[in-house]
């Protein structure tokens, strides 16, 4: 079997602050195949964004990748993104892996035109003339279905709405036909209707261009619609991983179950108050001992759950859970 496009193994990214060493990402392993979409889900503060940033070594100080490897395989070659020299990495950034960020309002440079910024993405990786880059930029604007692309080329970011800017971001990410796009909460800052459009666009581009997507979000609904596989993250660790179909029909980890139950059900009129998971996501300086979810888990049993951290086990083919009692809870 061919090596996966991206394989993250035991990634640990820490932040050295005045409160000590905080492991925002604490031993995360993921893999994405060519053309596949993996959704990384979790509440705010669980470390999913940091995982995304770590992939391209964009974690800002005082954060640092401490250990682990990120193998990126393309055109028969594998490189470890964690250790590869900066010059090599820059070729990957934007050239082979594109990234879309959460805040479209501030992610574009206010003093340059849209066309300029897309063209820059092209010119950084290909030896093309200014006019060729410009026409490529126009092509990309068409691809992301931005209205009036010819005029927009010379527009400035502040003249576009949030949804339009996000399309531009996608255009920039796709400019060099990357193998993988990392989308860090691409729709969180947008209105619901625009959200749907952007997701549809991403899905469409995937099927047309064959780009793999790592989609990071806190919204289960988004995941259900677009992802092949799902990984659920909690307090710096993956707690469950399976195909989307499997996860939604047979969730095994108490956290996943809680998340799914917490979604309001449109059909059930009189279902009573919304189910919630009591408590809050623990911050890195206060990670609980043993299983990090145990203080909030209704199935937690002493002494195991609060002393021994569970490992990620394959409970059924392709379905991984990090829980001591996964089988018992769900029988």
């Amino acid at each position, binding site marked *: 079997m061919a090596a996966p496009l991206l394989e993250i193994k035991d990634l640990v990214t820490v932040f050295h602050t005045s409160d000590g060493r905080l492991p925002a990402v604490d031993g995360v392993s993921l893999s994405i195949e060519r053309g596949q979409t993996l959704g990384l889900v979790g509440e705010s503060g669980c470390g999913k964004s940091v995982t995304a940033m770590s992939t391209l070594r964009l974690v800002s100080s005082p954060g640092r990748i401490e250990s682990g490897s990120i193998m990126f395989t393309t055109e028969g070659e594998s490189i470890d993104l964690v250790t590869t020299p900066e010059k090599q990495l*820059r070729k990957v950034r934007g050239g082979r892996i594109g990234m879309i960020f959460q805040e479209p309002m501030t992610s574009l440079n206010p003093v340059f035109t849209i066309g300029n910024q897309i063209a820059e993405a092209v010119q950084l990786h290909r030896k093309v003339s200014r006019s060729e880059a410009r026409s490529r930029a126009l092509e990309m604007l068409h691809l992301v279905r931005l209205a009036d692309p010819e005029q927009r080329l010379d527009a400035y970011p502040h003249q576009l709405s949030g949804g339009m800017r996000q399309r531009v971001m996608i255009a920039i990410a796709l400019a060099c036909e990357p193998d993988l796009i990392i989308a860090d909460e691409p729709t969180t800052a947008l209105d619901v209707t625009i959200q749907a459009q952007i997701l549809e666009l991403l899905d469409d581009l995937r099927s047309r261009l064959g780009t793999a997507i790592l989609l990071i979000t806190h919204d289960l609904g988004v995941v259900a619609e677009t992802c092949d596989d799902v990984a659920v993250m909690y307090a710096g660790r993956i707690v469950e991983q399976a195909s989307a179909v499997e996860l939604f029909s047979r969730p095994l980890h108490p956290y996943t179950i809680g998340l799914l139950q917490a979604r309001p059900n449109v059909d059930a009129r009189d279902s009573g108050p919304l189910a919630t998971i009591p408590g809050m996501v623990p911050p890195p300086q206060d990670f609980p001992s043993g299983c990090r979810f145990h203080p909030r888990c209704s199935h937690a049993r002493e002494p195991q759950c609060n002393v021994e951290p569970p490992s990620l086990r394959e409970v059924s083919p392709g379905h991984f859970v990090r829980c001591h009692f996964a089988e018992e809870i769900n029988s």
Partner: protein
Amino acid sequence: MTLVVITLMVYGLARSMPGNPLTVQLGESDPSRKLNPEDQQRMLEIYGLDKPWPVGYVQWISKVIQGDLGRSITRKQPVTQLIGERIGPTVLISGTALFLTWFLAIPLGLYASARGGRIDERFTGLVLYALYSFPTFVAALFLQIIFAVWLRDTHWELPLFGMSDLSSDAPFFARCRDIAWHAILPITCQTYVVLAYNSRFIKANLEEVVRQDFIRTARAKGAGPWRVLVHHAFRNTLIPLVTLLGLSLPALVGGSVIIEQIFTWPGMGRLFFESIRERDYPTIMGLTLMFSVLTLAGQLLADLLYSIVDPRVNVE
């Protein structure tokens, strides 16, 4: 509107200063040349000093509207001519200083931001900070001691006072060199403070810009560190920089009273100082008018430049 109020206030202030040009002059010159009372009265009338100051003000402003800034009382020259004579030397110093400052501050700021936190940057940063806190007149004195007293009669000696020692019919290049030689110390004093401030300003600004999201996008595109700094970050720093530049316009022409006083440089700052001391009202007013106009113009210029550099702002 603001101009009127400013000039009104300054005139009133100037006139309320005790004494008038005649008394000051008479007090200083020797008693045998005292004017008799009739002549005194006549002079007062000529200059409108015998009337209360609001009237004097109206007289002045009506002449200004016609483009006449009046004649200097103590120097007996038209004010415009006086200003014209003095403006050259001042611009020589401040213009060169301004150019040097920007020429050096930008690379310094970029360098400081790129090498932030490392030993060499910390050291330069410290030196710049110390320079920024070092008072100009102390530095001027220090430099004077070193270059004019300790290094006297050596090759490195620099002249202490004035702009030029040669007379005006000396050969052109010799005069240029002489003036340049005289100008070194004043220019140095004028430059170093602003340089220190500007480069720190640029560095602080760059550091803030670099924390913005679009810088992250640029890096995600694969841009290298220099491109990120010079192309993406700096272009955004230009915005506040340009405002700073516009606001330094008045100082360009106004010169520095202290520096010109120390080095006896015949510039605008010194003129201002002397005219206050001599109670030379027309000159004071002319200079004030000019200065205020420049300050307001400077603000306008800053706004204009701002709208050019920042595409988000509309020109009004």
